[in-house]
């Protein structure tokens, strides 16, 4: 039974008072244990929206609620037990092993002076196994390939045991096989009870696993709804600002750009 877990209520945000708003009057509701993809072209405000949902920045107007409680009323620690983040990429200058890195996901459950204990290590190992990268446990993070790093970041966020997981462009720099691996894992996490929200500029990745879409352009939500309602030629053309066609191949939705280059 799905119900609203996260509600975004007409929020706006601007990085500088004199610049145009990065997010304008955005509203939508995320249902529990679903996958929602926020799609739109580069610069549409997707990352800003994710950071607002994370609580990293406060909206200039409007509010965000988790189970009807404004996120500003949660403590930092409570919020981090609710929401996890997988950033677009992570620059890690030091040679943590993958296990040490994943273990950082236990921070929301530890006091400021605590060290992770045996139980935390156990949870980290389980996260590695769930993502299927237990063989990378002792590998230094800077030596991972792009695809492996993506999975390590996922394992780290999973180790945090959040109810909601935010992912910023999780597939943008992955090859097709790694993209599918990541999407498959997200699908599995949803089945295990995690609510997934991810941004992407690739509508096909969204169509593969998302239950709902939020279409964004120039900081505004053009439409939000189920995949069937929103994944149409007209709406996607408007979102990306270029004519596209939606083709159905063996039950999979494929988007083709109809713009001629010359």
């Amino acid at each position, binding site marked *: 039974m799905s119900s609203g877990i996260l509600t975004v209520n007409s929020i706006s945000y601007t990085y500088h008072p004199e610049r145009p708003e990065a997010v304008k009057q955005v509203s939508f509701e995320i249902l529990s244990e679903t996958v929602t993809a926020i799609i739109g072209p580069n610069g549409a405000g997707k990352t800003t929206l994710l*950071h607002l949902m*994370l*609580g*990293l920045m406060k909206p200039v107007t409007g509010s965000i609620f988790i189970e009807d409680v404004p996120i500003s009323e949660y403590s*930092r*620690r409570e*919020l*981090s*037990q609710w*929401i*996890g*983040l997988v*950033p677009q990429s*992570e*620059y*890690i*200058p*030091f*040679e*943590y*092993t993958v296990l*040490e890195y994943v273990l*950082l*996901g236990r*921070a*929301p459950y*530890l006091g*400021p*002076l*605590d*060290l*992770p204990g045996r139980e935390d290590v156990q949870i980290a190992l389980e996260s590695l196994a769930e993502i299927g990268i237990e063989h990378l446990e002792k*590998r*230094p993070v*800077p*030596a991972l390939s792009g695809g492996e790093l993506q999975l390590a970041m996922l394992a780290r*966020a999973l180790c*945090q045991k959040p109810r909601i997981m*935010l992912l910023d462009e999780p597939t943008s720099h992955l090859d097709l096989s790694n993209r599918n691996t990541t999407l498959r894992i997200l699908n599995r996490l949803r089945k295990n009870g995690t609510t997934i929200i991810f941004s992407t500029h690739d509508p096909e990745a969204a169509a593969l696993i998302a239950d709902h879409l939020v279409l964004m352009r120039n900081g505004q939500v053009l439409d939000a709804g189920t995949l069937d309602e929103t994944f149409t030629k007209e709406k996607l053309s408007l979102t990306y600002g270029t004519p596209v066609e939606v083709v159905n191949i063996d039950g999979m939705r494929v988007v083709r750009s109809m713009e001629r280059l010359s």
Partner: protein
Amino acid sequence: MQSTPFLIFFFIVKNQKTITNLVLIILPLLVLGISLFAGRYPKPLFMPFSVLTSDELAQKLVFNLRLPRLITAALLGASLAAAGGVMQMLFRNPLVEPGFLGVTQGAGFGAAFSILWISTSPLIIELNAAAFAVLGLVLSYFIARKIRFGGWVLRLVLSGIAVSALFSAGLGILKYMADPTSELPEIVFWLLGGLYSVTWKDLLYILPVVVVGLTTIFLMRWRLNLLSLSDETAFSLGVSVGRERTLLIAASVAITAVVVSVAGIVGWIGLIIPHISRRLTGANAAEFIPVSMSAGAIFAMLSDDLARVLTTGEIPLGIITSLIGAGIFLVMMTSRKVSITK
């Protein structure tokens, strides 16, 4: 009887962590004990134990001069190495050292300023050096806030470089103005760094700040890993990024400022010791920070031993640490042992 070695081995494996922790405490104490006998009295290198029991001058030398000096050396090494490790983690850059952010150059300028215009009394020089070290940090911080582009770390790095350059230029002017026969040598000798004038009083003056600073860093060592991630990731893990970063920077700068104020500019410890420690333990700050503190203390005491033993006069400590530190750095950077295994 045959099982004794096995039992010892089993004990070592079972209690590996406890044993490592004991070694980290015992080893510096051992070096301290041995170093008390290193010097040039009554003859170069080592004082025989029998001399200490019979010679009153030797007793005074060991307990009034060498002991406070060596404890200060240990605190200096532990502080600079810990502060270096912290700064490297917080600035996500393995080449950062504690003097960064205008602290060292500020202290140098403060000391020269005191020698020239206020007083040449060691205590006044120390207080002035500490005050200007803190001023260096405060200036770096406020200029970083004024910079209009880049992330917070980049802005701090840029303003730190600018403030250091300003103090360095100011120091150049002071050296140029100083009396070349009296004041200039004193400034130069202070800048080269050394513990030759350290007394129990100096030790007591730096002790509270060093103990509080080192304890803070030690207790928060695992958090350093979180703070080395990007701001948004650290935030998503429940870290109060700004507050925790400020607290750790304050602790690092405070201990650096006080030790530099009594010892002058002692370079390379803060850069090289965290590097070596990371090679020994891996990047996890929970493990490499205690090792850095211990190794820093040992390195500084051994360097000070060389400073006392090598020549009849005294080689400034800063020269020795730079010479050895830079040497190790070169060997490490050019060694074939690749630390990343893919």
